[in-house]
């Protein structure tokens, strides 16, 4: 197993090990469920179901009796499960970093692997501190750092792919690349805003929550506009690149689903707005606290948020990979959509 030392842009297909990419894919596959479960911990307020950390009720995390865990109360099932899955993600991250170190010649990506390890450990400690101090602020930070780590995994997955190695640069369109980056950035800001709404301090004034909700809604509209333009532009400029068109389309679909989930989240938590009171269904609708429907809708909204960030990042990374900033694409017949030139 000789490490590939030569760093050449034309790294040949044969000399590039597929293992880092496979490990990164596995990491993604584990991290997304981890985000679901982590979000479920918040939704069902199971965060304090295990009062100690890193132990579980005095047991080593991995030695906690599995019967008590699986057949125990729901809160314990979720919280301990979250910890177990998180440990698996941690171990896999270390494996990926090692694989990158041995098998990938690019220095920056090796560093990225190390950042991921530091990140996953930091996130674990943050989660632990959140439990030990029973602190909502730390819970919020932990909730915001999760998607950031997921995004890092996505970056590792994209940059270790064959597509990345073999990509041929082409004249930049300028606008498209920047738009992808902005969209990814905005979708993260939206996640952080969402976390503020979700983890509102019980002592906060009602107008603070009101302002946060309005901001979250406003940014949703802004994002919707960005994604719409993004889809149009990608199809317009990069029709021949399925690696871009596919994530762009997926982003459009996810965004639509997400808006629906967001509205549904409000309704399953706070009921239908009073201005619908004359509508039969709304007049008789009663929120069912702690129902499966409520927990799943809210959790799905959170998880889809992370997915949107991930897909937007895939698109951004690939777009920038293709862009040859020395050359400007001749934009034939550019159109204007929502005030943005495509």
């Amino acid at each position, binding site marked *: 197993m000789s490490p590939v030392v030569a760093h050449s842009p034309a790294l040949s297909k044969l000399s590039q090990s597929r293992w880092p990419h496979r490990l990164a894919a596995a990491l993604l596959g584990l991290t997304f469920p981890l985000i679901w479960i982590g979000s479920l911990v918040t939704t069902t*307020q*199971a*965060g*304090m*179901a295990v*009062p100690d950390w890193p132990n579980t*009720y005095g047991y080593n995390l991995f030695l906690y009796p599995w019967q*008590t865990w699986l057949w*125990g*109360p*729901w809160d*314990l099932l979720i919280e301990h499960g979250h910890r177990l899955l998180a440990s698996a993600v941690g171990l896999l991250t270390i494996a990926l970093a090692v694989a990158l170190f041995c098998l990938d010649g690019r220095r920056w990506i090796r560093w990225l692997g190390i950042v991921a390890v530091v990140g996953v450990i930091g996130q674990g400690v943050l989660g632990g501190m959140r439990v030990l101090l*029973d602190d*909502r*602020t730390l819970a*919020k*930070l932990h909730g*915001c750092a999760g998607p950031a780590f997921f995004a890092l995994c996505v970056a590792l997955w994209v940059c270790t792919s064959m597509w990345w190695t073999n990509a041929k640069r082409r004249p930049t369109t*300028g606008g498209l690349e*920047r738009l992808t*980056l*902005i969209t990814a*950035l*905005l979708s*993260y*800001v939206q996640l*952080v*805003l969402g976390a*503020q709404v979700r983890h*509102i*301090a*019980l*002592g*906060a*004034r*009602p*107008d*603070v*929550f*009101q302002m946060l*909700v309005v901001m979250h809604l406003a940014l949703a509209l802004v994002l919707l506009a960005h994604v719409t333009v993004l889809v149009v532009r990608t199809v317009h400029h990069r029709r021949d690149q399925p690696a871009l068109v596919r994530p762009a389309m997926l982003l459009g679909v996810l965004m639509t689903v997400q808006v629906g989930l967001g509205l549904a989240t409000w309704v399953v938590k*706070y*009921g239908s*707005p*009073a*201005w619908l*009171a*004359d509508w*039969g269904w*709304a*007049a*008789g*609708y*009663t*929120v*069912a*606290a*702690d*129902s499966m429907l409520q927990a799943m809708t809210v959790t799905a909204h959170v998880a889809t948020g992370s997915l949107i960030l991930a897909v937007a990042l895939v698109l951004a990374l690939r777009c920038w990979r293709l862009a040859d900033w020395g050359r400007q694409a001749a934009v034939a017949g550019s159109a204007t959509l929502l005030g943005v*030139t495509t």
Partner: protein
Amino acid sequence: MMKANSSWFWARCGLSGTLLGMLLLGLTGCGEAPPARFRLNMVEMVSSEMSRDQQIGIANVLTAAFGTPDEPFAMAEAELDLKKLKAAAGAVASDQLGNEVGLYRRHCAHCHGISGDGAGPTAAFLNPYPRDYRQGVYKFKSTERVARPTRDDLRRVLVEGVPGTAMPSFRLLPDHQLDALIEYVIYLSMRGELEQRLVAETFDLDEGERIDQLPEVAEITKEVVAEIGEKWAQASDLVINPDADLAPPTDRSPAELAVSIAAGRELFHGERAACVKCHGTTALGDGETTDFDDWNKRLFKLSESKPDLDLAELGALPVRTIRPRNLRQGIYRGGRRPLDIYRRIHAGINGSPMPGSAKASPDAAVGLAAEEIWNLVDYVQSLPFDSLSLPPEQLVAPKRERL
């Protein structure tokens, strides 16, 4: 064009970066009040012009009588079950056996507020606002208008929720958790009422005197808490139980029912019951739509007498009007059994403008007799199936007016 494009790009980058930075700063908690503290009823304090010093005095007595959100306490006079209170109070946590504590903060506080003031962080968008428990006033109950609800009434609200409002149904919670929550709601109510009474007591003191420094403060507190506890204890004696002989028989013929409905319609539109005044001739809830419930009326009056007052600063929500119910939907927030609707019409809806219609005593001159209330129950129950006999343009309910 490229230039313009890229500066627009950097502007957006900068903007979202700044927003992110601000949010992260906000994350670290600046401006967040510590959650686990009871807030004083500042509306009461300001309307009665309590000085800061007097407020501290009142807060001290309250803490002595009822403890804190983490360490609740109840004087013997309150007749509350401390074990239940402890399960409902405190921070959210659970153990290996699934025993949960912090139930109130887990399930209720984000709407009803830590102090039970109905102004939790999520309250502002909700219509109606979550209940402010501190006056001991509840809407959907089986007792006479001004009486407290029974524990069973509160349980009904928790289990069924309040349809068409944000108040959820907690039917998935186990019984003992509901018990603990009910006890805690009563606890917050009593505490809030004591606070109001202490304000009144302080108001009568001499300049500079503080209630917690009076030598007889312990006696006063005991006496007042006993009075408040008494009201709750009496609730089950004040349940409205209509005379069974006057209730309509269950085996009525359609013709008999039709007669009763016709009598109810007469009353509904007539002078004596005057239901149309609020619910409108169409019963769509489009009559009197500019009135307030008791909580908002209080705020409205305060803001009229002190126009420069910032209500939000006092922890109060913006003043809002109440809309009479659209009776053609067949949705009853206080229960849909004929008996529930009977009680609603008999006593009205406490805290809302809807008045009680029953005679104060069987031979009182004003008010409706039991038979008449049953007629109204029949009419109300027939409304969802009754086709409107008015021209369609009158059927559209008006937009809710907001202040």
